[in-house]
């Protein structure tokens, strides 16, 4: 899968394209680990071009959130489609991960 990584100040913005499911989630996890290894502990997932997230994708967000927090950073998710929002709410992840309506709002939550 394609994952665009851009930097906005201290924040690494990850923008995956397509589905985050059992087949593609290892690639997202790899990019997350690369960023953490580079010392980027504030991660914003821009989900504007993500069709859906299955439990394999939820696991990546959860693990990324835990690792970032242990490194004194944190993560946020922005631009969720109605389907992706519904999935996060069903999983109860909206209570443990920051979400934002736009990239700007997401960046503001990480600064």
């Amino acid at each position, binding site marked *: 899968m394609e994952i665009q990584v851009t930097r906005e100040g201290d924040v690494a913005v990850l923008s995956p394209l397509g589905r985050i*499911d*059992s087949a593609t989630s290892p690639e997202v996890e790899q990019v997350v680990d690369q960023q953490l290894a580079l010392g980027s502990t504030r991660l914003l997932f821009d989900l504007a071009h993500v069709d859906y997230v299955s439990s394999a994708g939820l696991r990546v967000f959860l693990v990324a959130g835990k690792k970032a927090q242990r490194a004194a950073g944190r993560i946020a998710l922005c631009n969720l489609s109605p389907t992706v929002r519904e999935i996060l709410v069903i999983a109860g992840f909206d209570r443990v991960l920051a979400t934002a309506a736009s990239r700007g709002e997401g960046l503001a939550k990480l600064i």
Partner: protein
Amino acid sequence: MWQWLKRLFSPGAAPAEPAPQVWNFRIKGGRAEIGAVNDALERAAMAGEVPEAAMRAMQVALDELLTNAITHGSVSLNDPMQVDLIIHKSALRAMISHAGPAFDPTEVAAPDLEGSLQDRQIGGLGIHLVRSMMDEFSYEHADGRNVLKLGKRFK
């Protein structure tokens, strides 16, 4: 009046529901094959009148259940998993049948959704998503095979 009389005396003339579209897949154990099922579902749904939300819900459910079957079932080249997708006028349905030890996912306990970020676990979330997003979710074990039926209604 004339139209009404015609309808009254020719019950067979009412417009019949279009025949459902049926797609059959044989999955031999590769995860990429799950993507192929979901690609086909996406193309068929987009070409028809299936709302995107219903299609996405079914894609999530298929990713969860087909991944579980490949991981825990006995899916192989000689005994592939069968997946039938049926697109009705107002529902999407799927039937999944695979060999392997009997396992009823509809009976899996709901996961604990409370706790802090560090406390949260991922176990059980996949089945929880399926149960929450589908309108129909049933299981039977027949002839040594696990058979799952899913349905998502719309309109």
